[in-house]
């Protein structure tokens, strides 16, 4: 698969939140506005790309050569958790304003099923190292698109009159459902025809 194909697939067609249904909790449950959304997305994208690369390295140089694929889950989970922790420590030193925007530890919000899911998708897809990194970045971009759209919808709905029993999270989930139906328009065949035109 070409790099453009990977970017389009993992950011739009197979959007990690709206199509793969991963990382729903930070998307629909996280409080805060666009600033928080940007901070969460940056942290998650970074973690996704690093996790994808780490998963590729572990799979290629450790799990397959030694025939210990049954240790994949513990190794990946520990790898992703350690990267999340290191990212948190690095962010504390280098970009403390990002942490202030997020309000909670980055490692806490970034370690979710979406980050481990991307690592597992990379391994199942038999990508190269560069492709794995691009998969992580594209999935992070998809996460940002979904999270920013859902935040924008939530901000609009906050000033609208809605039935009291649907206020808050139920309405966010229903909005996410309708957005997921809209994302079904990003069909693989449609995008490939569009790319051929370029």
């Amino acid at each position, binding site marked *: 698969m070409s790099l453009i194909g990977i970017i389009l697939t993992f950011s739009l067609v197979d959007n990690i939140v709206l199509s793969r249904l991963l990382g729903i909790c930070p998307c629909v*449950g996280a409080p805060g506005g666009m600033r928080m959304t940007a901070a969460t997305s940056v942290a998650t994208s970074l973690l996704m790309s690093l996790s994808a690369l780490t998963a590729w390295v572990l799979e290629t140089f450790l799990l397959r050569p030694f025939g210990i694929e049954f240790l*994949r*889950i513990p190794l990946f989970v*520990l790898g992703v958790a350690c990267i999340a922790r290191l990212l948190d420590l690095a962010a504390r030193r280098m970009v403390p304003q990002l942490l202030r925007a997020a309000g909670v530890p980055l490692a806490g919000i970034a370690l979710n099923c979406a980050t481990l899911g991307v690592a597992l998708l990379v391994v199942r897809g038999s990508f190269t190292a560069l492709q794995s990194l691009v998969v992580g970045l594209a999935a992070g971009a998809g996460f940002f698109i979904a999270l920013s759209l859902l935040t924008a919808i939530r901000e609009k709905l906050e000033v609208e009159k809605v039935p009291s*029993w*649907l206020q808050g*999270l139920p309405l966010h989930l229903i909005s996410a*459902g309708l957005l997921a139906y809209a994302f079904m328009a990003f069909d693989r065949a449609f995008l490939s025809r569009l790319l051929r035109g370029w």
Partner: protein
Amino acid sequence: MKQSRGFLGNNPIAVLMVGLCPAAAVTGRVIDALWMSLGVFFVLVLTRLGQGILRGLGQQPPGPPSTQPALAFRRGWLGGLFLASCFTASFELILLAFAPEEGASLGIYVPLIAVNCIVLDRVLEPGTPDDPGTGKGILRSLQTAAAIGAGFALCLVVISLVREILGSGTITLFPMRSFGGTIEVGGLSRAPARALISAGGGFLCLGYLAGAARLLSRSKRQGEANGGEEEAKRA
């Protein structure tokens, strides 16, 4: 009675709204929901047991009291994560050995049990009242974990029943002898609402379930308040 709080009062999906990814992703068929529920129950209970035993042996000291939101990193988080991931790997091997078709159907969602928000919430939250290291004992911790796992299973089965019946017109269960495993719902199987099986259907079902849970809890509270007023008037 406190254990029932994890099952209904503090139900992870309907009330606390955590662990939503598998609830939306694997509820297209009832059998997938049953296997996923079994996996989360297995990992949750055994991880709590493992944590309790390790703390009891003094290898992992209890963490400080919880003062921050869930999922923050504290002492012992890596050990808890490692335990959860090991039990998840064990469950995946068991699933692939006994039900390879369902294992393939669930795909990456089985390994993701290790970082499921419900499991992370329990694993990374030392110092909670039911924590095995805080002196209340392993048994209470296990009871709470089992109640949460059962509450999660109940919600997953309800969502999957709604989605599969309306979206496919079938109910898929475990095949046994002459029973092929699939029950066709008359009428619906000929013209199902396929949109409910897609990703958007998962979100919609979850949203309406959360709304229904809120309505139920409100009416229950109102009923209790009305009952209290009547008693006060009688007195």
